[in-house]
C-alpha cells in the first residue's frame, strides 16, 4: 500500500463501516421518507377512503363497459394544464377537442370502490408523433358519476408518489434521489452485515436496560437483521421496477431501434397492430368480449375478476381490446390477457403462460406493488416498513448519541444539526401526515384546488417541525437531549385523536359506527391513529422522565463542582 497516496482503509470492514456511517447518515433522511410513506402506501386506498368521504363504499368489480365505462370515456378530455404543458412540443395550434384516441384503459383491484380511468390522445403536429396527451378521471363504477379531481387521494395520490419520488417531478429529480438512496440502502445492508460480525449469535439481542448507546445499537441491529430480506428485496425491487423507465432507459435511448424492431415483430406475431390503420371502424360489444375472456379463464381453472381493461387505437380498424385478469390470489399484478378485434369482437389471441424470466419479473414487481388479497401479508408488510424506519431512526439517534458529548467538548455543532434533522424526519413526518389529515377534515368540501391546500398543510407542517427542532436543539451542542423529541411526540399525541374526532364530526362516521358496519378502511385508520396517539404519549412521558433525570444529574454535577 502506498502511504500518503490517498485516504485508504486499513481493511474491507473499516471501509464498509465508513460507508455505512456516512452514506447512511446523508441518505438516511430520504430513506426514512421512502420507508415510512411506503409503509403507509400499503393501505393507500384505505387512506383515500378516509380522505374522500364520498368514496366510502364497498369495493366494486369492473363495471359494464357499455353502460358505465363507454359514456365516461367519451366524456373525458385532457386537462387545460396538460394541454398547455405540451404546447412547446407541438408544431402548429393545439386542437380544441381530442378525438384521435390512442388508448382508453381502466384498472381496478379488490380494494377499489372508485375506478381510475386513463386515456391517451394523439396530438396532430406533435414533434414526437409517439408522444400522447394524457387524461385521467375517477368515477363511481356504480353509476359513472365523475369525482371532482380537486379531491386529492391522499393515500394513492400523495403518500404513494412521495415514497418513490418525493413528489419532486422537476426533471425527475425526486426519482433520482430516491433511486440513489435505494442503492445506498442496499450498500448499507451489505456493509451492515460485514460490520456486524455476530449476525446470528446476536439475532435476539436487545438490552434496553444497558447504556443508551448500547441499547440503541441493539435495536438498530435487531430491526435491521430480522427483516433483512424484506429491506433488501424492497430496495432492490423498487430499483428494478423503475430501472428501464428512469434509471437506465436504454430501451428508449441507446437501443431504441432494438425496441422498435421488437414491437414490429410482436405486432406481427401476436396479431395486435402496433399503429393505427387510418381507417375508421366501429366498436363491437365489449361486455361480450369481457364475458368471453372470463369464460376462458374459468376453462383454464383460474376463474377471476377483470383487473385491467385496455382499448387500443379506439375508433380505428386496427383497434383491439385487451382484457386482463386481476392477480388477486397471487403475486403477479395482472395476467392471462385475452385480446379481441375491436370492430368485430373476434378473438385475436389468448396470452400463453409467461416465460421463466417473465415469471420472475412478475414476481418481483408484484411482491413490491401488492395488488393481491392477503390482509395478513399486508400488515406484515407494514411491520417490515416500520421496522425499516426504526432501523434508520435508531441509526440516526446512534450517530448523535455517539458524538454528542465529544462534539460538546469540541464546540462542534455537528451532532446538533443531525439531531434536529432527525427530529424533523422521525417525528416531523408524523406531525406532517396528521396535519394533512386534520386539514383534510377542516377544509370546506367545495374549496377549489382543495388538494393543493392539503399539500401545503403537509409541507408547511413539516417545515414548522424542522424549524421547531432546530430552535430547540441548543442542548445537543452541550451534550444533552433535544427537548423537541418530547414536544413533537406530544404534538402527535394530540393531533392523532383530533383527526379521529374531526372525522366523526365532519362525516358522522365515528368508530362505533364504522366498526359496527365492518367498514374497515375508515375504522382501521381511526384505530391506527388512536394507537399512534397512545404510543406517542407514552414515548413523550418517558422522554420527559429521562430529561428530568438528566437535568437532575447535570444539576448535581454543578453542585458537586461547586462543593
Amino acid at each position, binding site marked *: 500500500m502506498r502511504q500518503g497516496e490517498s485516504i485508504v482503509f486499513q481493511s474491507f470492514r473499516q471501509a464498509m463501516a465508513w460507508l455505512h456511517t456516512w452514506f447512511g447518515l446523508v441518505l438516511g433522511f430520504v430513506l426514512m421518507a421512502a420507508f415510512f410513506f411506503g409503509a403507509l402506501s400499503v393501505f393507500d386506498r384505505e387512506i383515500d377512503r378516509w380522505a374522500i368521504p364520498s368514496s366510502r363504499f364497498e369495493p366494486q368489480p369492473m363495471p359494464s363497459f357499455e353502460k358505465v365505462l363507454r359514456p365516461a370515456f367519451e366524456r373525458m378530455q385532457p386537462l387545460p394544464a396538460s394541454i398547455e404543458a405540451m404546447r412547446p412540443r407541438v408544431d402548429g395550434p393545439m386542437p380544441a377537442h381530442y378525438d384521435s384516441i390512442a388508448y382508453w384503459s381502466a384498472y381496478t383491484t379488490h380494494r377499489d370502490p372508485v375506478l381510475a380511468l386513463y386515456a391517451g390522445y394523439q396530438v396532430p403536429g406533435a414533434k414526437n408523433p409517439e408522444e400522447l396527451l394524457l387524461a385521467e378521471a375517477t368515477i363511481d363504477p356504480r353509476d359513472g358519476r365523475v369525482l371532482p379531481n380537486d379531491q386529492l387521494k391522499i393515500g394513492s395520490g400523495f403518500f404513494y408518489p412521495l415514497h418513490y419520488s418525493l413528489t419532486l417531478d422537476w426533471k425527475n429529480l425526486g426519482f433520482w434521489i430516491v433511486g440513489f438512496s435505494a442503492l445506498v440502502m442496499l450498500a448499507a445492508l451489505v456493509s451492515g452485515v460485514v460490520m456486524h460480525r455476530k449476525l446470528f449469535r446476536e439475532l435476539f439481542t436487545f438490552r434496553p436496560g444497558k447504556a443508551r448507546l448500547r441499547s440503541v445499537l441493539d435495536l438498530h441491529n435487531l430491526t435491521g437483521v430480522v427483516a433483512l430480506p424484506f429491506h433488501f428485496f424492497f430496495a432492490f425491487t423498487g430499483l428494478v421496477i423503475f430501472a428501464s423507465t428512469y434509471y437506465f432507459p436504454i*430501451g428508449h435511448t441507446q437501443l431504441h431501434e432494438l425496441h422498435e424492431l421488437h414491437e414490429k415483430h410482436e405486432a406481427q406475431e401476436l396479431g395486435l397492430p402496433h399503429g393505427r390503420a387510418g381507417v375508421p371502424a366501429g366498436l363491437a360489444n365489449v361486455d361480450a368480449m369481457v364475458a368471453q375472456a372470463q369464460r376462458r379463464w374459468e376453462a383454464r381453472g383460474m376463474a377471476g375478476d377483470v383487473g385491467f381493461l385496455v382499448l387500443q387505437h379506439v375508433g380505428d380498424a386496427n383497434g383491439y381490446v385487451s382484457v386482463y385478469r386481476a392477480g388477486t390470489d397471487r403475486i403477479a399484478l395482472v395476467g392471462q390477457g385475452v385480446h379481441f378485434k375491436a370492430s368485430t369482437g373476434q378473438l385475436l389471441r389468448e396470452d400463453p403462460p409467461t416465460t421463466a424470466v417473465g415469471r420472475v419479473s412478475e414476481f418481483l414487481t408484484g411482491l413490491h406493488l401488492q395488488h393481491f388479497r392477503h390482509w395478513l401479508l399486508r400488515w406484515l408488510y407494514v411491520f417490515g416498513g416500520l421496522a425499516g424506519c426504526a432501523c434508520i431512526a435508531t441509526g440516526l439517534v446512534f450517530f448523535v448519541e455517539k458524538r454528542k458529548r465529544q462534539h460538546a467538548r469540541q464546540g462542534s455543532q455537528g451532532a446538533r444539526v443531525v439531531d434536529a434533522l432527525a427530529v424533523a424526519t422521525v417525528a416531523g413526518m408524523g406531525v406532517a401526515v396528521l396535519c394533512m389529515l386534520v386539514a383534510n377534515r377542516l377544509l370546506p368540501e367545495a374549496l377549489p384546488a382543495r388538494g393543493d391546500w392539503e399539500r401545503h398543510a403537509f409541507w408547511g407542517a413539516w417545515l414548522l417541525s424542522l424549524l421547531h427542532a432546530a430552535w430547540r436543539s441548543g442542548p445537543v451542542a452541550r451534550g444533552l437531549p433535544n427537548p423537541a423529541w418530547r414536544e413533537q411526540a406530544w404534538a402527535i399525541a394530540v393531533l392523532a385523536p383530533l383527526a379521529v374526532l374531526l372525522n366523526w364530526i365532519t362525516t358522522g362516521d365515528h368508530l362505533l359506527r364504522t366498526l359496527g358496519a365492518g367498514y374497515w378502511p375508515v375504522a382501521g385508520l381511526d384505530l391506527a391513529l388512536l394507537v399512534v396517539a397512545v404510543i406517542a404519549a407514552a414515548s413523550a412521558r418517558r422522554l420527559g422522565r429521562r430529561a428530568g433525570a438528566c437535568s437532575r444529574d447535570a444539576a448535581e454535577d454543578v453542585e458537586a463542582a461547586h462543593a
Partner: protein
Amino acid sequence: MSRNPAIARPVRQRRLQFAARLAAAILGGYAFTWGFIAAAMAVLFKAGMEFHDAEFLASALGLLLFLALFLYIVASRRRPAMIWLALLGGGALLAAAASLLQASVA
C-alpha cells in the same frame, strides 16, 4: 519515496483523491453499469429472448453489479485515476458492443 513521512502529501490532496474515488464509485459505476445492461440486453435479445424479458434480466443483474462495484471501489486501494479509466473505458466498450449488435440486427 512515498514511504518517507517528511514528504507525505498534503491533507487537502488526499481528501480530493478520496472524493475522486467516491465519485468514481457513483458516477463511474453508473457508466459501467449502463454499458453492462446495454450489452446484456443486446446479447440476450440476439440470442432469442423476448425484448422486455431481456431488459428486465439485464437491469436486475446490472443493479446487483452496480452494488458490488460501489462497495468494491469504496474499499479499493487503487489510484482513483485507474478506477475511472477502468469504469469509463469498460462501460464505453460494453456500450459500443451493444450498439454494434443492434446495428447487426435492426
